[in-house]
């Protein structure tokens, strides 16, 4: 706020608000501690919520002191940015939409404004109005800061989860001596298929596997890129001396592959994982035989 509204007996509205925030720090924090935003995030004790509230009041006072009430990047916010982000994210996880979080933040203004008006009610009306406006702007900036940090926190979370998915979704399982299997799940984009290929080739070496089964039951769409990734993996495994079997081809996928015009003729395919295992065992010279009437395998 510009300082031209300064009067003889009162400082500028910005400084008035700053002094007020410092003076009423305790009371404001006490009132905020009962608001859902603080109450539901700091659940351990009410003192914790009050302390968090005080930190925010201090930040606001510092921002006002620097005269940057409308600047969400003001240095004063840096100390509470992380705390504000945690609060925003916690409310988001509780199922609130961004709009609901924003309106919860808006409710923080009223108790502060009431306190402010009771403090400076004696001052000239114009000055009171200027101070109230300054406070409103400052609280609006606080909202922007929370929403900003909560959003960027969300993006960071999504990035972390993407990386986690890359790792989690590609286990290589040893089914038998010389037979490993990879159950592929979800979207097989370039990054995922690279990880699959690397872990598979690695385990072919470690397990001295002769057969590797790629099960695509959990892959919802097999388009030309997925097919290309599969064929590259098969070719690479072949170079390592292992034969690949692609299993888990559902009827709808089979028809789609035919219409697409893909030629998987060079790849051994089986409908189910069990069929693929049976094939691999047979190739290794071990056959699965059903039990006879007396419970022992026949020869």
């Amino acid at each position, binding site marked *: 706020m510009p300082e031209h509204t300064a009067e003889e007996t009162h400082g500028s509205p910005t400084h008035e608000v700053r002094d007020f925030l410092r003076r009423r720090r305790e009371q404001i924090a006490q009132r905020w501690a009962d608001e859902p935003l603080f109450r539901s995030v700091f659940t351990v004790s009410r003192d914790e919520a009050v302390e968090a509230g005080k930190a925010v009041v201090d930040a606001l006072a510092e921002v006002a002191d620097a005269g940057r009430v409308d600047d969400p990047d003001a240095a004063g916010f840096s100390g509470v940015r992380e705390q504000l982000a945690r609060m925003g994210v916690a409310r988001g996880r509780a199922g609130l939409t961004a709009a609901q979080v924003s309106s919860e933040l808006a409710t923080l203004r009223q108790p502060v404004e009431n306190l402010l008006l009771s403090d400076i009610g004696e001052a000239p009306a114009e000055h009171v109005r200027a101070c109230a406006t300054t406070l409103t702007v400052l609280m609006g900036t606080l909202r922007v800061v929370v929403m900003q940090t909560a959003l960027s926190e969300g993006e960071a979370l999504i990035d972390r989860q993407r990386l986690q998915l890359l790792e989690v979704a590609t286990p290589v399982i040893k089914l038998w001596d010389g037979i490993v299997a990879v159950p592929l799940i979800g979207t097989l984009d370039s990054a995922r298929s690279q990880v699959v290929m690397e872990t598979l080739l690695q385990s072919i070496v470690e397990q001295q596997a002769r057969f590797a089964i790629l099960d695509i039951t959990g892959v919802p*769409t097999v*388009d*030309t890129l997925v097919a290309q990734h599969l064929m590259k993996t098969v070719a690479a495994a072949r170079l390592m001396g292992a034969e690949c079997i692609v299993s888990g081809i559902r009827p709808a996928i089979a028809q789609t592959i035919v219409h*697409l015009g893909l030629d998987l003729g060079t790849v051994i395919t089986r409908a189910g994982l069990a069929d693929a295992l049976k094939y691999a065992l047979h190739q290794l010279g071990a056959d699965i035989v059903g039990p006879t009437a007396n419970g022992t395998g026949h020869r």
Partner: protein
Amino acid sequence: MPTGAGVEARLPIRSDMDLVWVRQHVRQAAAQLGFGLVDQTKLVTAASELARNTLVHGGGGHMESEPVVSGGVRGLRLTFSDEGPGIADVERALSDGYTSGGGLGMGLGGARRLVHDFAIETVPGAGTTVRVTSWTARPPRQREEH
């Protein structure tokens, strides 16, 4: 009778993550309109190919999806648009095995075989629009609107 709500959409195609979104939207829209599992899978696969073309060759764009009805048969129309370099030789691009991007060269031609109606408009230097339609039953024959 299913309504068109949730089917009509305009999705951006700017990254790999958007392709996931396109596939999920098409799958849900097709299921909602009453497509069988095989036709759903075909349409989703075609959408995946075309959306990837939009991203890789067209430099990004968007997909519009809308429900259509013709002769009492419901269908789903998908339009993929980009403002990329366009396709110089459409016939060649549609032929199997031809690729300019290191893929298998089956995407465009394969997508055409996976849907009932396929139309491509391209202006070299100004972009490409591919419009595909699939029907929940046999495609109505009297369709001559475009």
